[in-house]
């Protein structure tokens, strides 16, 4: 996100560094870079270097006796054997990792879609109809954002126990005769857990976008003869499309790396890609495999990540 300079000012990149021509203020060349220095150095050491370590571990070997990873830091000695074995576990015949991969995509798509449907309705209501309760609705919508994900999932775990309140309520309404074992590896529990956990991230961008749509735009649509549903389809929906896509990406990204929802609300039968990584990280001899799995996850999420960054930059530039 390069800052846009005002029209008519030329950027000077000469030996004098950046000079602001309008005020004549003059800074030494090192002045502004020195502000970014600490942050940049920090990220190089603790953001870029860790990824390089992942590569070195994934393409390295294992110490034969202790079975700890033996990373190879020179790219020309990298060995891709473990990486290709790990890849094969995802699609070649005894594809032991394939179910988790398919499950991850199914759960993430289902949960993101449910997030969108509920989130859109809620954001639409809050932006257009909340009226004098707007602040209260907003505060309540934002509250889950600041409650720890873990506590919220833990709360559901308690409610969904065989003797928990969900089964009590279902039993009292005579909907079930015996307690439902919600936590025994039911996909629906994990999907709803994911929805519950990440939906605030969907509602906020949607609310922001729907709130910015001028009522006059909708009135214009109505005046020009569109029915309410046409106005929604052809005015509101296209105007909120960037927020829909951004919201989908921002909820899907963490879901791809999620392992705790399945661990707390499901069993082995609902384990996701994140669970594969989480179990292999701590297992002796599995270091290169853990690294390979992280790389594969990185490949899965890099496109949506870059898309999100591009879209937010575009939104910032047009604002």
């Amino acid at each position: 996100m390069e800052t846009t300079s005002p029209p008519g000012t030329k950027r000077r990149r000469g030996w004098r560094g950046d000079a602001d021509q309008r005020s004549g203020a003059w800074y030494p060349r090192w002045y502004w870079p020195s502000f970014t220095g600490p942050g940049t150095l920090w990220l190089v050491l603790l953001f870029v270097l860790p990824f390089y370590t992942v590569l070195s571990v994934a393409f390295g070997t294992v110490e034969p006796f202790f079975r700890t990873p033996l990373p190879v830091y020179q790219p020309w000695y990298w060995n891709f054997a473990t990486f290709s074995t790990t890849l094969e576990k995802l699609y070649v015949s005894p594809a032991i990792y394939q179910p988790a991969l398919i499950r991850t995509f199914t759960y993430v798509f289902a949960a993101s879609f449910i997030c969108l449907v509920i989130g859109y309705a809620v954001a639409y209501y809050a932006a257009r109809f909340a009226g004098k309760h707007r602040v209260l609705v907003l505060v309540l919508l934002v509250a889950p954002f600041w409650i720890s994900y873990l506590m919220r999932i833990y709360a559901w775990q308690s409610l969904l126990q065989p003797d928990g309140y969900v089964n009590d309520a279902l039993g009292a309404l005579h909907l079930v005769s015996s307690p439902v074992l919600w936590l025994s590896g039911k996909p629906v529990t994990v999907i709803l857990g994911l929805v519950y956990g990440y939906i605030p991230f969907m509602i906020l961008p949607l609310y922001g976008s729907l709130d910015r749509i001028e009522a006059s735009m909708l009135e214009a649509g109505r005046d020009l003869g569109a029915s309410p549903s046409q106005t929604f389809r052809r005015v509101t929906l296209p105007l909120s499309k960037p927020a829909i896509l951004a919201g989908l990406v921002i909820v899907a990204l963490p879901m791809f790396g999620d392992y705790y929802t399945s661990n707390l609300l499901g069993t082995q039968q609902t384990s996701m890609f994140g669970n594969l990584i989480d179990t292999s990280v701590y297992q002796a001899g599995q270091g290169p495999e853990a690294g390979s799995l992280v790389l594969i996850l990185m490949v899965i999420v890099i496109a949506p990540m870059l898309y999100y960054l591009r879209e937010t930059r575009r939104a910032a530039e047009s604002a």
Partner: protein
Amino acid sequence: MSSATLVPPTPASSTASRIRGWRKNPWRRPRFLQAITIGYLLWSLIPVAIAVVFSFNSGRSRSTWQGASLRWWNGDPFDSLFHDPTLRAAMLQTFRLSFLTVLIAVPIGTAFAIGIDRWHGRPARPANFMMLLSFVVPEMILGVSLFLLFTNLFKNLVPLGTTAQLLGLATFQMSYPVIIVRARLLSIGPEYEEAAMDLGAKPGQSIRRVLLPLLSPAILASVAVVFADSVDDFVIVRYLSGPANSEPLSVKIYSAARSSPTPAVNAAATVMLMATLAMIIVGYLVYRRFARGTGDAGDMASFTQL
């Protein structure tokens, strides 16, 4: 689940007339959307409220109410939150990590934001890109990467434990102040600083005495956000925790939830909740106070959408 119980059962004919009425006047309140919103709010907040209430359960169960007591907060001399040494250590660790993360991430992030806003040199772009990437990367990926870093390349430099957790948390949180402060920088523009320099301030003086006061709402908002988010953090902190006493509350709750938790876990979660909410409320109030009269609306919406 609650939305179904909230909508009174309406006969089909009245539904039809309602739709006709909506066609006539689409600006009236749509009951259906209202029901979904109320249902959503109940669905999102009631489970948490129940979890808080159960921290006052007198029995061992976290799902069956057995009467009210302070047993799991203070009463039980061994297993209550304020007496169990591991939970006490975890509480301390949570606040230590969050406090120190704020001290590291907010100043570095603020300086980065100012620098990147003013510096038009070529390397500014990749540096900024790297910062934004650290904002969107799934925490899982960063956590495992840092774990592999501290167990391999930095093995003899930084052992797993508080220092590693702090470095990891600060890395993950640094992008918040950058984004919040930059948004503020864009809205205040360079004019005030230029005026100060025209009046004879040196670059350092104009930053210290003009820019930083103008940025203070954004910096305070960053403090609140980073603190609250660090209290809640779990993935990175768990991968980088070393000895048992370096595990903060979030990690304890996770481990307990997977075995057999007592309501003391609910009490621990309630402490986290209170810490986060208190920080956010204080942050919001201070933000509103500082943002007053500077062109920012200073309402909840602009605070939450930072």
